[in-house]
């Protein structure tokens, strides 16, 4: 092999090496470029899941709150009804006491 041939082979090898490095740089650059969209996609995915769960929590709370409120109203109304029924039965006696208060104010 002549000296010229040796130099040509080495130059070819260096060209190939430079091309390989260039390819690696391009791929690395591509990987870094993909990061932003990957991050955005990941964020959207996590937030979408969280928002869905939040929506479920709200729906469940509204349904539970409504049910609890209705039960409270039912119980409270029943208690009020008892108070009102008892008070209605005592109206006559109360009227008697008020009349006595008015008429007795001059004794």
């Amino acid at each position, binding site marked *: 092999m002549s000296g010229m041939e040796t130099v040509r082979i080495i130059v070819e090898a260096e060209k190939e090496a430079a091309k390989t490095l260039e390819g690696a740089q391009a791929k690395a650059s591509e990987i870094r470029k993909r990061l932003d969209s990957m991050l955005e996609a990941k964020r959207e995915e996590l937030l979408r899941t969280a928002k869905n769960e939040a929506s479920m929590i709200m729906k469940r709370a509204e349904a539970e*709150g409504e049910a609890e409120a209705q039960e409270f109203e039912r119980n*409270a109304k029943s208690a009020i009804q008892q108070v009102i029924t008892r008070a209605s039965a005592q109206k006559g006696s109360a009227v008697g006491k008020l009349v006595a208060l008015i008429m007795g104010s001059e004794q």
Partner: protein
Amino acid sequence: MFETRKFTEDILAVTKEKAQSIIAEAENETEKALQEAKARFSREAEDVIRNAKAEAEGVKRRQMSEARHKVKLQEQLEKDQILSDVLQQTRRKISEISDDDGKYFPFLVSCITNAVRELGLGEVVVQISAKDLKRVDKTRLEREILKKLGKHAKIEWSKDPAEALGGAIVSSTDGRIRIVSTLDQKFEALESKLLTEAGRQLFGSNP
């Protein structure tokens, strides 16, 4: 020849290694950034859920508070209705009593006596209702008043009737001082006390 091939192979091997290292570095950087971002996004997502839970508690509290308010309002309306009925019935009962001479006459005597005593005058003008003007024996009434008063006073019976269910309006002869002691006035003056008393009677300590 062999040495040249070995030399170029070495160049290519080192280059390949370097290329893999460049890609690996980019992948590692990306992976690290992704993991850090995931932790950040997870915290963001947890915030969304935590806020939703707090809001959900608020919703439940609001619904319960509205229910309590609604029930309280209804309770108050029903109680007010009963108290209003009691006051109406009391007024009606008093009107009935004003027709019952046995109960009403002593009241009228006390009513006028107390007013005369309060005025502290020797001569007064007394106005009674049109109904009383017609049916009450004024001679008997005056006799009972003076007896109860325990001293002499001159009573002039006004022909102008008092607009009232019963009771009387007692004035000085010049009309400058007068004491209104009608059933209507008493009812009005005592209304707040009557409501409190009725509330206590009917609903105990929580009217």
